[in-house]
């Protein structure tokens, strides 16, 4: 693949990113809401499952758009939410912190 083809691919991926940004925002929104609910001891079973799913999807997708750090953070969240009994109460602040970092990563992708 020569340089111009590589540039064309990068541009096409950027277009896909723009197309799917609302979906990425929605997933991060789920993680933000879940983190707040967990901190307030109000995380429902449905929210728990949605957060696990959102983290899993972000972990699988962000790296393909060049956001490797986003994948690492989303994977950390997925591990926390994958506990059947819900996240460990000791990680409540971390859930919120990662959701905020993910928000910043997706909003600042160049």
């Amino acid at each position, binding site marked *: *693949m020569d340089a111009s*083809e*590589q540039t*064309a*691919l990068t541009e*096409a*991926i950027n277009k*896909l990113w723009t*197309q*799917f940004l609302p*979906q*990425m925002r929605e997933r991060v929104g789920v993680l933000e809401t879940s983190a707040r609910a967990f901190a307030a001891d109000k995380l429902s079973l449905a929210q728990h499952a949605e957060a696990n799913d959102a983290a*899993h*999807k972000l*972990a*699988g*997708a*962000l*790296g*393909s*758009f060049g956001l*490797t750090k986003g*994948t690492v953070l989303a*994977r950390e969240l997925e591990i926390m939410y994958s506990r059947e009994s819900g996240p460990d109460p000791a990680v409540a602040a971390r859930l919120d912190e990662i959701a905020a970092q993910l928000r910043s990563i997706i909003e600042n992708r160049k």
Partner: protein
Amino acid sequence: MAHRILIIDDEDDIREVAALSLESVAGWEVVTANSGAQGLARAAECMPDAILLDVMMPGMDGPTTFRELRKNPATAHIPVLLLTAKVQANDQRRFADLGVEAVLFKPFDPLTLSNQIAGVLGWN
């Protein structure tokens, strides 16, 4: 002649990035399906040279779709590569034990995905 690949994944973003990657980097023909059931139908219709199959899908998941592909004599011979965001070792072993050609991981690099697939299938 260009290879024909069927991508089965319920996530639009993954399906579209993978399709873009395989078409523009490798020049392969790409057919897509957004569920296991649709994937079974597409595989029988278009007879791809290989199938890239997501593991976690609602309804019929990847392993079930794979077993259905193997049951049908028309599609039983088509090489299948699983695509998963699960990175835990026990998941990897479970998927490899199914008898697929390979297990590839999300996120993939759009620049090198076709090379990974070609390497597994001996298309280099």
